[in-house]
């Protein structure tokens, strides 16, 4: 479906940094940032181990 809404759907800085991701991180309290990071990194490690040797 076409839309004429002129509002931008992304927000990148001139050097290519996704500002929406930063704003989302800043909206979380530090403890939540740490939990999220821990979960995220462990999921990456699990995926890497599942694909070890490939």
């Amino acid at each position, binding site marked *: 479906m076409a839309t004429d809404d002129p509002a931008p759907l992304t927000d990148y800085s001139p050097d290519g940094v996704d500002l929406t991701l*930063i704003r989302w*991180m*800043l909206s979380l309290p530090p*403890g939540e940032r740490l939990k999220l990071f821990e979960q995220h990194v462990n999921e990456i490690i699990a995926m890497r181990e599942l694909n070890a040797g490939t």
Partner: protein
Amino acid sequence: MQELRPTATLRALHDAGVAFILVGGLAAVLNGAPVNTFDVDIVHSRDTANVARILTVLEALDAIFRMQPERRLRPNASHLASTGHLNLMTRYGPLDLLGTIGSNLAYEDLVSRSVELDIGEGLRVRVLDLETLIAIKEELGGEKDRAVLPVLRRTLEEKRKQELH
């Protein structure tokens, strides 16, 4: 599977009364920057009593040097009293103990450039501020440090904008 438990590492250091400042990638994350890292980097106070407290924690965490892991070399008090960097592996994942960072900045130099953050369940951790993290990475100027600088700079800008509103 080796599981990374940075919160458990920070909890162990905190509960033992270790004087330290969280620096590096995890400090960037706690400051709100969407970056990835696999280790916990801290700058510790190198005074004798603090070194003794760290050694107790390292023993509980079964810490060994990551270099030549098969030899299971353990850090001692003189390692911890030095200005150098100790790259360790613990039961909760990699832990780097840094005597100094940047231009010979020690724990005492960095306290005023850090903020104490509440990371839940009574755990409060001193974290290097984003301005200093950026300044040190600019000074180091390595490829790895330069790569993360745009994200850190934009995070700082966004933080400042939010503080104005």
